């Protein structure tokens, strides 16, 4: 049949077409499905593209990194990403499309851009973290309080791992002689099986969680970059929700795994975990010692202070008491001193009052005399001695009375005298003797006065009484009127 081509002719034709179609190298995104390195150092890979939803494979291609390129690419990649160039990684590779008549289509990888992978891993990791966060469990384990002394330790590790041995050595030979109780739960700690294996171990620990204070996940001695399994969502979810605080010592230098993130405390190595635990004990011991020290100090202080207080009170008491007594004594002395002037003043006052009263007596007498003087001033008795005035007045009264007496007496006596004189005069008038003096005479007859001449007869003998004598006669003749 015309136009028939041999397979080689076809393949050559394909080869030419491809070379024409893809003359330049191309940057292609793919996932490493499988990767092998042969003895000569060439790297053979299977690249795929998966549906991000379903994981169904959409495309597949073989690829090769020749030894001389791989020698540069691999370390560069791993150094840059911190990840081994391994299955499951998404990579951005610079490829030339090659077609070999015998081996078929193959992509020759000239270069890998680690930045892309890094971004992709980060994205994936971020997705896991975002999911855990969204589910609200990312901090769950961290929220479990770590016991002050995490002494009962469940360990998930590979028994043969050097890291486990380091961990145990560290714990058992701790310098302070702390006592730890450990129990190992075995698990595969690397590779694709690791998550499942570790989850199984977790379930085992979970069954007896109350016997332990803490769970330690340690891995050691393996590749420093074979840690993708610890970004596994399932594993991280289990760790996050584990009822005991989880300490990780997975052993890597750079970015932490998601397991580290959800763990209670992430440490770099198993030894570091052991040291961490010992450190917790050290801290506790220190706290106890510190508490003891503080306590002893405080108690000692209190006792000392109280003693000081008592002594201070004793020291205070003496001056206070002395002061108090001094004050009382002073007050008493003052009071005593106060008595004398008060009394003396009083006596002085009284004495003064008496003197005043004596003066008043004299003054009153004087006043009395003065009053008398005023009353008899008209008598014009001149005396400067007021005190004598009373007497003078009375004397005057007496004197007056005497003179009144004299006057009255004399008046009366005069009157009487004149009466007597009158009577005397009258008497003188009638006195016969005085009549005789004037020449009359009394004629007696027989001793009796002759009052009438008729009683005389002739011849009667008559006696005549004259002044200074008598004469006898005889009647011779009688004449009658």
């Amino acid at each position, binding site marked *: 049949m015309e136009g028939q081509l041999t397979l080689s002719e076809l393949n050559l034709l394909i080869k030419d077409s491809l070379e024409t179609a893809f003359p330049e190298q191309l940057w292609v995104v793919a996932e490493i499905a499988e990767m092998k390195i042969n003895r000569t150092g060439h790297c053979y890979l299977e690249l795929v593209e998966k549906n991000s939803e379903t994981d169904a494979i959409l495309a597949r291609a073989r690829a090769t990194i020749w030894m001389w390129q791989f020698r540069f690419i691999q370390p560069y990649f791993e150094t840059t990403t911190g990840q081994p160039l391994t299955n499951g990684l998404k990579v951005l590779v610079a490829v030339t499309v090659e077609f070999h008549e015998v081996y078929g289509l193959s992509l020759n990888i000239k270069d890998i851009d680690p930045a892309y992978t890094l971004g992709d891993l980060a994205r994936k990791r971020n997705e896991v973290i975002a999911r855990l966060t969204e589910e609200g469990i990312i901090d769950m384990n961290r929220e479990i309080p770590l016991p002050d002394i995490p002494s009962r330790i469940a360990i998930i590790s590979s028994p043969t791992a050097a890291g486990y041995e380091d961990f145990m050595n560290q714990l058992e030979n701790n310098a302070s002689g702390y006592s730890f109780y450990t129990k190992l739960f075995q698990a595969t700690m690397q590779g694709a099986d690791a998550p499942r294996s570790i989850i199984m171990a977790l379930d085992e620990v979970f069954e007896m969680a109350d016997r332990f204070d803490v769970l330690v996940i340690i891995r050691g001695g393996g590749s420093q970059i074979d840690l993708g399994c610890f970004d596994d969502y399932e594993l991280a979810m289990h760790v996050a929700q584990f009822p005991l605080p989880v300490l990780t010592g997975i052993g890597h230098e750079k970015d932490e795994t998601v397991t580290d993130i959800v763990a209670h405390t992430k440490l770099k190595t198993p030894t570091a975990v052991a040291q961490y635990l010992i450190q917790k004990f050290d801290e506790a011991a220190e706290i106890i010692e510190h508490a003891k020290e503080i306590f002893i100090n405080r108690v000692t202080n209190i006792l000392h202070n109280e003693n000081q207080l008592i002594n201070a009170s004793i020291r205070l008491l003496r001056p206070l008491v002395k002061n108090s007594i001094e004050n009382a004594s002073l007050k008493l002395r003052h009071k005593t001193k106060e008595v004398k002037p008060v009394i003396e003043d009083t006596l002085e006052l009284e004495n003064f009052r008496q003197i005043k009263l004596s003066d008043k007596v004299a003054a009153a007498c004087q006043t009395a005399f003065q009053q008398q003087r005023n009353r008899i001033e008209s008598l014009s008795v001149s005396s400067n001695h007021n005190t004598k005035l009373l007497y003078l007045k009375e004397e005057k009264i*007496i*004197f007056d009375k*005497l*003179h009144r*007496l*004299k006057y009255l*007496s*004399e008046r009366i*006596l005069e009157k*009487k*005298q004149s*009466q*007597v004189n009158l*009577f*005397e005069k*009258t*008497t003188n008038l*009638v*006195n*016969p*003797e005085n009549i005789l003096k004037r020449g009359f005479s*009394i004629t007696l007859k027989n001793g*009796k*006065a002759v*009052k009438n001449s008729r009683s005389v007869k002739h011849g009667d003998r008559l006696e005549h*009484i004259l002044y200074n004598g008598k004469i006898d006669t005889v009647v011779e003749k009688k004449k009658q009127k």
Partner: protein
Amino acid sequence: MAQKKQTYREAMQEVEDILSSIENDEPDVDELAEKVKKVSQLLKFCKDKLYKTREEVEQVLKDMDE
């Protein structure tokens, strides 16, 4: 004796009486003489008494002045 006891007033009364009787009764000379004598005596008595009284008063005043 009677005269000693007789007061000045009695004496003066008697004088008065006697003088009255002289005036009214017109005694005879004998009587008159008697009466006059009596009056004289009485008046002397009164006069003495007056004098004595005066003496006394004066003596009293004199004594008081001393």
